[in-house]
């Protein structure tokens, strides 16, 4: 076993993808049906709380997928993917803010509440047009995409790589965090954007909207999974792996590796932005805390736990760690941090391929044993 996860036969990959999609939609559809159709006292009833939680986890999973695509497959460790996630979220948040209209506490149809009480006279230019959903949806992808392109173009062209790149991405998200904390920026400062009412005319508090948003997240995750699978299985994907393992060699074979990296980075940033945009209406708030470098590092850990270099590993890692977090922070907050810390150390030292690596190792051993038996 040289480097697991890459030399799968086409058949196993297909089976894996099919299983993933089946499980994903099976579970989410089941939860939706049980939430909407069953009475509350039914044994099978799934509470709205659970549905919202699932929606949130699915967004996290999509974010983890984004990180895995560049880290696991191209070896670019971004410690700043939270920035793209948050930017996507902010654009969506701005759209939702505009949807409030005159239902804010001051009844001002022109300005969001936080601008009214800080004496803003008019809407800053960058808020214009965001009351149109499609423009907002476009900007959700465009803003983080352009940032990723600009940053990637500069960084990869001048061959900033490895650790340096990681630290620069961290600086990027840190700088953005500081910037968004400033109230002068017009993004609500520390409080961020909150108190959303509805999306596309649907009440955000309604169970149906919540279920729909959760299903949208599942759809986004499923689509992103398939798209990533296709991209990585193409020759483009093999070039990406080649760049991860021996960039110089790839370059001397005539590949402009920087271009490959930029586009993969942009693709990954778009996934992260999409996750952010879906996340915000479900949790109901977006604030500069999402830019915190710590958050981005945590995402990397989800991927590491699940197993980088396998798409399903990233998703499983995100779901598992977040589920554990929800369970344990309530019960024993102190022990949780100890557990999380140890998880980091143990996974990197003992399980460099994460749970997915463990599974495939077990799997291959079983196959070997089976072969011996036969």
């Amino acid at each position, binding site marked *: 076993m040289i480097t697991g996860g890459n030399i799968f036969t086409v058949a196993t990959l297909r089976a894996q993808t099919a299983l993933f999609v089946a499980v994903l939609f099976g579970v989410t559809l089941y939860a939706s049906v049980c939430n909407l159709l069953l009475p509350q006292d039914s044994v099978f009833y799934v509470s709205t709380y659970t549905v919202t939680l699932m929606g949130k*986890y699915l967004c996290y999973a999509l974010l983890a997928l984004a990180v895995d695509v560049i880290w696991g497959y191209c070896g670019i460790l971004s410690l700043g993917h939270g920035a793209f996630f948050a930017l996507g979220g902010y654009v969506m948040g701005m759209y939702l803010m505009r949807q409030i209209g*005159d239902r804010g*506490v*001051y009844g001002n149809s022109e300005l969001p509440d936080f601008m009214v009480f*800080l004496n803003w006279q008019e809407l800053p230019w960058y808020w214009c047009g965001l009351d149109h959903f499609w423009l907002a949806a476009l900007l959700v992808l465009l803003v983080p995409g352009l940032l990723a392109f600009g940053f990637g173009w500069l960084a990869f062209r001048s061959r900033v790589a490895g650790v340096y790149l990681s630290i620069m991405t961290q600086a990027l998200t840190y700088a953005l965090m*500081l910037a968004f904390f400033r109230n002068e920026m017009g993004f609500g400062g*520390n409080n961020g954007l909150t108190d959303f009412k509805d999306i596309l005319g649907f009440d955000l508090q309604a169970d149906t909207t919540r279920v729909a948003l959760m299903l949208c997240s599942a759809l986004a995750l499923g689509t992103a999974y398939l798209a990533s699978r296709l991209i990585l299985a193409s020759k483009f994907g093999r070039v990406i792996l080649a760049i991860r393992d021996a960039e110089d060699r790839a370059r001397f074979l005539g590949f402009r590796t920087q271009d490959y990296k930029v586009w993969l980075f942009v693709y990954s940033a778009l996934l992260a932005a999409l996750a952010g945009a879906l996340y915000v209406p479900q949790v109901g*708030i977006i604030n500069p805390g999402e830019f915190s470098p710590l958050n981005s590092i945590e995402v990397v850990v989800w991927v590491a736990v699940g197993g980088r270099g396998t798409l399903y590993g990233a998703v499983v890692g995100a779901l598992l760690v977040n589920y554990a977090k929800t369970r344990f922070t*309530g019960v024993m907050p102190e022990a949780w941090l100890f557990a999380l810390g140890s998880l980091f150390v143990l996974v990197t030292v003992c399980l460099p391929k994460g749970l997915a690596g463990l599974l495939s190792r077990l799997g291959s051993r079983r196959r070997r044993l089976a072969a011996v038996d036969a």
Partner: protein
Amino acid sequence: MKPNNWAIKPKKLATKLNKLASKMAVALSSCLLSVVVCAADTIKVGVLHSLSGTMAISETTLKDTVLMMVEAQNKKGGLLGKKLEAVVVDPASNWPLFAEKTRELLTKHQVDVIFGCWTSVSRKSVLPVVEELNGLLFYPVQYEGEESSKNVFYTGAAPNQQAIPAVDYLKQELEVERWVLAGTDYVYPRTTNKILEAYLKASGVSEKDIMINYTPFGHSDWQSIVAEIKKFGGAGKKTAVVSTINGDANVPFYKELGNQGIAAEDIPVVAFSVGEEELSGIDTKPLVGHLAAWNYFQSVESAANADFIKQWKAYIKDDKRVTNDPMEATYIGFNLWAAAVEKAGTTAVDTVAKAMIGMTAPNLTGTTAVMNRNHHLSKPVLIGEIQDDGQFEVVWETEWVVPGDAWSDYLPGSRDIVADWVAPIKCGNFNTKTAKCSGQNY
């Protein structure tokens, strides 16, 4: 791997872990055991304070205060013949998590009341959920105002219960003419300073005698700013600093003040976020003489306060622990709620909320707190000078209790807005000019 595990299975595990945790965390022990033991027919009190992350420093104390109050109430026989049961969750200083945990408390645990939040952003995050699910939240920290929700009772100070009296004191007693408004860049200082700026200008202070400065959270290098304050204060008029600097940034700020030779007699600093608990982690020698404005100080001499301090020290089993203003706000909030439940004879949110208005409870400084129609309290305002033992010496106090004002009269946007939760208005943001209750769709 069966991902649907997360939705259904680990009930047993959770119970086990609950038991384990209750053994581990000494402070939680009695209450969490009661979570496990008492299955039915209790009144559930949700506690929504961060126990980890950056806000844990401040909020853990409030969690303990609520638990202490619950324990004391149970010793008195509970409420309506039922025992109280505290449900503690940890939103981990993560704002979206506050909303999620609120939903958990209200739907999964079905708590009757929530005591929680510290930062404004956490309250803003929780607000839509509490309103959607019609919960009841008691918010115990001084804040920027500009809010009044049907489902929230604000037991901390509004700006007119802290900032404006403090400025009045400086003007009248210390004859301050030049003002530095220094704050951390977030909504509370921004709003407070906007209010103060308007207030000062209205009372004839000219633009050039006001200096406003904002710094990021946790700012640690204060050299330039203190030098600027020193220069600003050297212009021949009595100068004071009104500080809304938050938490961790205060220590380096005061240290720098001391080292650059700015003593409290020259340029006094009056702070709204520095209390006994914050001082307990500081070498207070360089701070002696600087001021703070609160509705409560531990050093206030009253029978109720003495009892409270004794009860707290016994509960927390540490003689060195101090009490502070948000703890008093929690104390008042809890007692008001308990009284309202007794009066209403039920824990149903709407009935209790109605009973809350006009409810009175003794506060710890010897007067009586009243819950007003705008869901804010009437409280006395005290100005204290920092002493070298980390306590405050009260140098000034208002003669009467000051009613909290949800909507500031000094901000153009909120000048015409009032909050009144009694019929016929029944609205948190009623515009007196247009006679409309804007925004909120109740």
